[in-house]
């Protein structure tokens, strides 16, 4: 399914985090926080993605609100969300995955990958 709304981002993040059963390992608020931080990082790396905004747009609640970013860069923001969530854990496998997702985010934002 397409990545359009905040709910879409949280749903897709849970798939990559293998966190589909209630009670969730990662709270909605944590993932939404990751989304907003991802947008801030995207704003830092790619000001052109947010030319119509004076500051980074923010999405504080889990809702069907559209996340306003070019479709070509939605997957990168999703990867940041997942990487940021996995930074919380203290296991070797999640550290490596977190690093891979965050590196991929930066690469997608700044290189033609």
């Amino acid at each position, binding site marked *: 399914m397409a990545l359009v709304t905040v709910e879409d981002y949280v749903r897709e993040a849970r798939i990559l985090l293998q966190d589909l059963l209630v009670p969730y390992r990662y709270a909605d608020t944590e993932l939404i926080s990751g989304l907003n931080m991802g947008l801030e990082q995207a704003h830092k790396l790619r000001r*052109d993605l947010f030319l119509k905004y004076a500051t980074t747009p923010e999405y504080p609640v889990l809702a069907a609100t559209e996340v306003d970013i*070019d479709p070509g860069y939605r997957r990168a923001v999703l990867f940041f969300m997942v990487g940021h969530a996995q930074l919380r854990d203290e296991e070797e496998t999640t550290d490596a995955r977190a690093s891979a997702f965050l590196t991929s985010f930066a690469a*997608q934002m700044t*290189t*033609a990958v």
Partner: protein
Amino acid sequence: MVESTPKAILTRIVNNAKIHLPGSIEDGIQYELYNVLDELLSETDIWYEDIPFEAQPDVVDYDVVPITGRIVHLIYCWPADSDYRVHEIPAVMPQPGWLQLYRAPSEIQPAQVRVSLTVLDPVTRAGFPQCPTWILERYHQTITSGLVYKMALMPNKPWSNGEIGVLYGQKFRNSIGQAKVDYLHAHTRGAQRWRFPQQFMPMLRR
């Protein structure tokens, strides 16, 4: 026959640039479009407007306001009942829009001033700068080259490419030179390239 509109031509230009710039987004290209058009128009004087005014006795300063666009250079000032190639009123433009005659006329004299123009902020609602359609049609490849050149030389972007930037920069600069020649020859093939030595001209030329 389907008539081209500025928006349709600009959309084509932006799409052309997007093909050359993988990962670029429309907002960013539209933003750079203003800079490209400004550089093209400011350096070539291809967009100009003749503005009539009435020269008054004892008055040497006048405000010149074009219908649209921003003034770049004063090109000519001449009596309205004559031709700029025959009679010229000596004048300067200390600031764009401020016309200053060397001497005030002794009586009221209808006159015309030709000024070159460039794009003006703000842009249209569609996000495009306003520019005459013929310039967009005639110079669409030049504008595309300018966009690719400026975008490709941006640092740390998916479409950054120094070699492509330099190549398209050369194409853009060459096209600007050609556009300047087009203007000087009034877009006439084989027009006189030889120019009368300027120090022997009977009137001032800029």
